[in-house]
């Protein structure tokens, strides 16, 4: 198993290299540059800025410099927020995004898993149809609708939650964004869980467990549920990578200082270093979480062995 993890980490290096290279050149193919949009920037100042950041060097040299810095863990300065390095921006924003994302993920797994199981156990009855309807609603209503509704109902009408802002990480400030982020995920997990649980309940070894006179608890929880969570485990990898790296919609609507906004803002402003930093972080998260999922899979399912 250790050998497998080591091998997977080794293969991550070329993957990451390809991603970094593609992102580096693709963002530069896009027209414009980091200092183009700002009106009133005199040509001399612009030239100075570009010289300072090495943007006049040949492209290959910029690439070599970037790779060299990256290897030393240096993402470089942000072009549009010159007072901060990219690393500093992440150091402030990433914990916020991770807190919101992780809470949403855990909520989605627990609540979605529960709803899906209840639906599967009551297949084609009222409880099942209710969950299916909720799941359909949850996955079709977009977050930019859910978020303002939460603000309106919980913030303005009932005054239970703050409308927005981070509040230095106060618990109540997190409820709205976590709910918004979690709702579509709850819907997805519930649907996945319902399907795999129904399949699991129909399998031959569940029939064996029933024929042996085992209790419902054992049949459902010990035997059916454990087999049914395997697809959920697979789903968790990419979902975690997506949720923990923040969401521009949620962060913008609730005015939260996470990193989800950076990707879009930076891309629009041609803030090359910040775009690259975001790409590397998201790629790393994706690689690491997929690895974690594969390792967990081996713990849940003894048939899966890596060697």
């Amino acid at each position, binding site marked *: 198993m250790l*050998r497998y993890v080591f*091998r997977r980490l*080794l*293969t991550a290096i070329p993957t990451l290299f390809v991603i970094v290279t593609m992102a580096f050149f693709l963002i530069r193919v896009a027209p414009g540059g980091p200092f183009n949009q700002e009106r009133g920037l005199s040509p001399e100042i612009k030239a100075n800025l570009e010289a300072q950041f090495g943007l006049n060097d040949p492209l290959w040299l910029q690439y070599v410099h970037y790779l060299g810095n990256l290897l030393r863990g240096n993402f470089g300065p942000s072009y549009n927020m010159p007072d901060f390095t990219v690393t500093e921006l992440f150091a402030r924003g990433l914990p916020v995004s991770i807190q919101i994302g992780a809470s949403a993920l855990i909520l989605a797994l627990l609540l979605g898993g529960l709803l899906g199981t209840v639906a599967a156990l009551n*297949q084609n009855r009222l409880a099942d149809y209710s969950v299916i309807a909720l799941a359909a609603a949850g996955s079709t209503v977009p977050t930019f609708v859910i978020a303002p509704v939460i603000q309106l109902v919980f913030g303005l009408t009932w005054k239970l939650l703050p409308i927005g802002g981070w509040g230095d990480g106060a618990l109540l400030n997190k409820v709205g964004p976590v709910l918004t982020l979690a709702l579509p995920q709850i819907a997805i997990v519930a649907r996945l869980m319902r399907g795999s649980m129904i399949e699991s309940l*129909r*399998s*031959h*070894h569940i*029939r*064996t*467990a*029933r*024929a*042996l*006179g*085992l*209790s*419902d608890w*054992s049949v459902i929880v*010990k*035997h059916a549920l*454990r*087999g049914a969570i395997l697809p959920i485990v697979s789903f968790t990898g990419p979902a975690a990578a997506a949720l923990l790296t923040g969401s521009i919609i949620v962060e913008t609507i609730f005015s939260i200082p996470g990193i989800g906004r950076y990707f879009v803002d930076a891309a629009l402003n041609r803030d090359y270093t910040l775009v690259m930093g975001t790409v590397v972080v998201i790629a790393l998260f994706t690689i690491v979480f997929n690895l974690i999922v594969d390792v967990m899979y081996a713990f*849940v*399912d*003894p*048939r899966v062995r890596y*060697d």
Partner: protein
Amino acid sequence: MGTCETILSVKDLRVRFRTLDGAVEAVKGINIHVNAGETVAVVGESGSGKSQTMMAAMSLLASNGEATGVVDYRGRNLLTLSKSELNQIRGRKISMIFQEPMTSLDPLYSIGNQLIEPIRRHRGLGAAQAREEALKLLRLVHIPDPERRMKSYPHELSGGQRQRVMIAMALANDPDILIADEPTTALDVTIQAQILMLLAELQRKLGMAIVFITHDLGIVRRFADRVYVMRYGEVVEEGEAEAIFVNPQHAYTKMLLAAEPTGTKAPPPPNAPVLLEGRNVEVTFKIGGGFLAGEPLILRAVDHISIRLKRNQTIGIVGESGSGKSTLGRALLRLLPSDGLIRFGDRDISAADRRAMRPLRRELQLVFQDPFGSLSPRMTVGQVVTEGLLVHEPTLSGRQRDLRAVEALREVGLDPNARNRYPHEFSGGQRQRIAIARAMILKPKVVVLDEPTSALDRSVQKQIVELLRELQADHELSYLFISHDLAVVRAMADYIIVMKQGKIVEEGPTEAIFSNPQATYTQTLMAAAIDVTRFRLSA
């Protein structure tokens, strides 16, 4: 032999399934009883309701099924018990083993864990005591090295071992009745025999009654005291096993008993030309390996095999699962990469690629085992049957193709009007006829038949065997007949190759192999396959 005390009696049992097409009655008011310690067989072909009868008794019906009537176990009606009362009887007084040993154990828990669970539940033993009991049970069912096996997971066991574990679980609480639902159907013949011997031995030791649900008359003859014959959800005949075999009353029972394939195939004339030849054919599979993963494991599925198939000859390739018999068939048709020489007629096709093989494909056809999976569900039977013509005779008009489809379907004994319907509307035997028609429409010379009768009921098997023989006689076909079923091979083939682990252990003319098998493995196979001829009616 049982005493006269009746411990289980099924009275006027009906089982209905709610389906989209309305209610389907699978069991139509049957009466069955089981006496203490006896062996009862419930015999029937697929769809007879024999399994659903016992599923209903154990409350294991699918969620759209419902049972009415009475299932009386020692004075209590199992159909009206609450779930917790029922769970005092299921797995304790009445237990059950199933047809699918590969999937009937939970893949995620160790054998020990799964064995201990019912023991603790029903006997309230502590973990350590239950573990001791579990070990005892594994020894009872002759699992080698039980200490180690307790820690194994189901996928690490063979099918036969899994079935032994299933039996151990079922017997854990010393039941009154063991219901065995086709317990050996999915196993190789030598393993089948071992499992049946084990069940007989355990019955002698423990004295429980056994209910065999089976389609296999050999098992019935050898083990059952009494027999119920079921068809279409009804019991058509019941009685002492001996009486039923000697003097069957109902026409259906007579038909079942006569359904073993009979006859033999004469060898082709000695000067018949060799059509398909393989010399030192070898197929290897690489397992694992890759970046940093070390050397791959090389599995030699077909190990230097030579074979010469003459015109109008049928070579039976016999072996248990994993012997490489199907792989050999595919390699000879160049559907798998292989080493060694393969000749078709006077052409060396050892190195022919897909494009070079394409014109030859019409003369080299293949029929698969699974009549359900091998026909596209979205094509009409006519489209399925004529698809090959589009490739091999592209100049035919639609009308000409349709005429050929009519001809081919008629030849395999199907109503030509079937060509506008879809495969799911046909039974297993009819689908296999469609698959044969699909091969025959191209007028092939060599047909590889890969277990073409294994998924079919006995009575249907016989018809397919007869159809294949007629087609062979009419068109001078050469067959490579791959099967694990010795009775069918004996009726079909004039020459037999016995394979084990990729190698030929014995080969020769059919009658020589059957009357005087040389290799020990062949002898084991023969002994294990319950000799069907013994059960045929001496009319």
